């Protein structure tokens, strides 16, 4: 059971967005997708979810090509947690999670007891069952993110794709959500691919990191191998210090300064100037 990506190339009109992307992901593996804005993280996730078609290259899930699968079929094996997409809907948490059952239902059939049992199971696991009858637009960011994850799980996927699941969350929720994702990946033996902005979170939680730079893989491997001063300089254009904290056993990335200063500001303007 694996996800194989072979030499993907993607264009948006004439502009090349992704080039020569190849990697393999195994079950129970949490892969962090990192890179600056516009490096192609979200595009890659959408291709893996079958929402965008690559011009060249192919994706195999369990040896079966994604191109030969219908959207509905893909939805039964691959689920996406997009950036907060349900903030302004009036659905209850239960209704949202129940939508994860759509790919498993026939067109005119209605959800049954089995669907409810599964939905409850996933809500229990993500700690959202007590929110079942609350409207999602009343929930906090962290609660809402857990509801979206429960909805993705209700699709019963083998592959879970997450697009910056910690964006706009406070520190406590960030850690909670990452713990949840890590735990689910191990317990359910999922293939999880997670785009992340926060490098410290990426290093701490992911089994493997994939560093994207202008649509190409700049580095892939164990977090300690990918997060190096040279890579941060080359890809993120920053000077950073990487330190090891023996007390917590964590790697810390401390950005020092950008390599180039873009602002025209020279000196603070004084009163008499």
């Amino acid at each position, binding site marked *: 059971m694996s996800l194989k990506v072979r030499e993907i190339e993607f264009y948006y009109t004439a502009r090349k967005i992704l080039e020569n992307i190849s990697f393999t992901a195994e079950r129970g593996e949490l892969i962090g997708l990192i890179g600056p804005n516009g490096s192609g993280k979200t595009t890659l996730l*959408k291709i893996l979810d079958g*929402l965008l078609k690559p011009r060249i290259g192919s994706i195999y899930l369990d040896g079966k090509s994604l191109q030969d699968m219908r*959207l*509905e079929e893909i939805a039964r094996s691959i689920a996406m947690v997009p950036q907060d*997409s349900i903030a302004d*809907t009036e659905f209850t948490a239960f209704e949202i999670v129940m939508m*994860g059952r759509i790919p498993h239902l026939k*067109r005119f059939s209605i959800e049954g007891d089995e669907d409810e049992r599964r939905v409850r199971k996933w809500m229990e696991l993500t700690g959202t069952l007590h929110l*079942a009858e609350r409207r999602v637009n009343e929930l906090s960011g962290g609660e809402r993110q857990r509801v979206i994850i429960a909805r993705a799980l209700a*699709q019963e996927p083998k592959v879970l794709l997450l697009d910056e699941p910690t964006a706009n969350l406070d520190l406590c929720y960030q850690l909670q959500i990452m713990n949840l994702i890590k735990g689910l990946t191990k317990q359910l033996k999922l293939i999880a691919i997670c785009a992340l902005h926060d490098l410290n979170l990426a290093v701490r939680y992911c089994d493997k990191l994939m560093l994207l730079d202008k649509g190409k893989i700049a580095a892939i491997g164990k977090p300690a191998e990918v997060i190096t001063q040279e890579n941060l300089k080359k890809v993120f254009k920053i000077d950073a210090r990487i330190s090891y904290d023996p007390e917590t056993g964590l790697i810390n990335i401390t950005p020092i300064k950008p390599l180039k200063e873009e602002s025209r500001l020279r000196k603070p303007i004084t009163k008499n100037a």
Partner: protein
Amino acid sequence: MKRREEAYMESLLKRRLLKWKIVISYLSLTLVLVMAISLAIGPIYIPPEKILKIIYESFMGVPQGESKYAEIILQIRLPRVFMGVLVGAILAVAGAVMQGLFRNPLAGPYILGVSSGAALGAALSVTFLPTMMGVYTTPIAAFIGGCTSILLVYNIVRLSGGGFRTETLLLAGISVAYLFSAILSMIIWLATEDSHMILVWVMGGLSSADWLKVEAVAPVMLVGLVLAYSFSRDLNALLLGEETAQSLGINVHRVEKILPIIVSLIVSAAVSFSGAIGFVGLMMPHIMRRIVGPDHRILIPSSALAGAIFLTMADSLARCLLEIPVGVITSLSGVPFFIYLLRRSRNP
């Protein structure tokens, strides 16, 4: 707290289904009641027992003789009440679908310019070909006008390049509506003789309803309702965004292309017989959403019933008030109620 925990033990799906059944039965009963009242009142009051007798006798094939009441009930009020039910249901369903599809609370049945197209068609027929095809000249011309606007809108979207997007569809619909309205204004300005007739049509009314028209609209409504309902799960998922819907296995492009055409066609059919009655299609879905929530599987049928109830009520009122155009009544009576509802929120 204890009660809340216990609540989770019972099936949420069963509770939801029960709630849906209650809403539908309540609305259906109200509709029957409103239809009965609407048959009784008007310039001449006809007592309910007489109405029942007339309908029963007509149903059993008993000859009615020269009864004046029978004539009023069977040939005037009954078709008119049915027309109100059909048109109200179509407009409300169309509004619910368009609002869901465009994720825009301002979307309504006329969002693709159907009403302007139909009004223009009607105006042209009133001015230039008054009696070519008898009493059905205007409805047919209006239907052609409505379909023309859909055609025009889709061709604008096709020619605009950049693929099919609902935003483009919305803008194309609005511009076509403006274009047709401008031409309509010009015709009204030029055709001083017929301008009153055109205006009456534009304001919308059910006074010209007869059995033949009911027979023409009824199948359209049934087919439209079933089709719209069959897309309700897709519409639910679309509320979470196009990409999430697609990620759930829904062919978003197909839904966004086909559904507006289906809806606009049934609206064209309704409008061509009744004129562009306002408020019902825009507001009924909002009102029902506040009561039943955003799930289209209950929103679409309950909006249909609410639209039917509301238009039947408004039309009875119009009939009592010297035949004021029902479109005027719907807006005058509906808006204060809607503002009242805006102040209260949905209780789940």
